[in-house]
């Protein structure tokens, strides 16, 4: 009987299964990091896992309600259209007698159902809407690192943005409003992990 040069069927099956598994895992990540920080700091798995935590916060009402897909801000945990239908306006600060700061004071107004406040209360401007509503993790990650769609922010500016006053106000929303699903410290930890490991986008 001649010598057999073929691998046993069982071995072939295991190798095949491994290859399929690896291809599925690898397809879950964009190969190209959004920011080139050198090979040593790239870690697509850590980056994508961190972004999925970031995504939970960005899609929470405290963040998404001011990043609507239309030109009217949202309200409440059900993201309904803001009562009175205030318009975004060119600069994101409202129009005519319906400017954000007419009701939203520099600080939260006491009591339930009163306007939350911040000295810089506004929506993104009309020429840079930075929509969160309806975006998949892939779409939102891609948008956040694109200077043409993120307000001309480079990596340093994006890192700083975690401590922006309006971002922080999401954790001080006024009486009767739910908080984002994690603390700001945790959010910032994941935000930095996402960016510093390459700001990879999850698979589409």
């Amino acid at each position, binding site marked *: 009987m001649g010598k057999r040069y073929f691998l046993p069927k069982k071995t072939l099956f295991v190798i095949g299964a491994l290859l399929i598994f690896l291809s599925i895992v690898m397809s879950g990540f964009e190969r190209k990091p959004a920011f080139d920080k050198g090979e040593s700091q790239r870690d697509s798995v850590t980056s994508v896992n961190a972004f999925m935590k970031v995504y939970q916060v960005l899609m929470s009402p405290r963040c998404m309600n001011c990043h609507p897909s239309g030109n009217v801000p949202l309200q409440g945990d059900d993201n309904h259209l803001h*009562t*009175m*239908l*205030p*318009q975004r306006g060119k600069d994101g600060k409202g*129009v*005519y*007698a*319906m*400017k954000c*700061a*007419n*009701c939203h*004071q*520099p600080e939260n*107004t006491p*009591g339930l*159902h*009163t*306007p939350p406040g911040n000295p810089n209360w506004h929506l993104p401007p009309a020429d840079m809407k930075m929509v969160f509503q309806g975006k998949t993790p892939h779409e939102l990650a891609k948008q956040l690192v694109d200077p043409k769609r993120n307000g001309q922010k480079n990596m340093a500016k994006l890192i700083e943005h975690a401590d922006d006053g309006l971002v922080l106000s999401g954790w001080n929303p006024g009486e009767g409003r739910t908080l984002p699903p994690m603390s700001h410290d945790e959010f910032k930890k994941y935000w930095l992990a996402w960016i510093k490991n390459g700001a990879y986008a999850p698979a589409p």
Partner: protein
Amino acid sequence: MVTLNINNKTYNLEVDAATPLLWVLRDVIGLVGTKYGCGVAQCGACVVHLNGEAVRSCVTKVSRAVGQKVITIEGLSEKNDHPLQKAWLELDVPQCGYCQSGQIMSAAVLLRENKNPTDEDIDAAMAGNICRCGTYLRIRKAIHLAADIQQKTKNG
């Protein structure tokens, strides 16, 4: 002690800095043309101008108005002859009248920023002013008329 400029007049008042501007206007100074409606910035009855913007005085602390310029319905014009006031009279806009000073103060910002507003512009500007008598159609008509009056006054 706070110092306020209201309708181009200076007031030195012993009030808590956290007092809503509306309380100071009505109860301390006696300018009662501005109305209390909901108290939570939902209805627009309390609109006054703070540096020209249509703020809701029920949620605006008086401290925000210190050093700024406040105009109430009483100070909108010297002889009650603002184009909006003329149009309101001509078309007999109010029914009960409670919301009307807020309506006029909001409309004044619209007409300052948009000399010839469309129905859509008016709706966008006035959506925060509620009228329980439902005078909305007359309000809209009066704003168009006021825009005409304003234009003629400017040209005349």
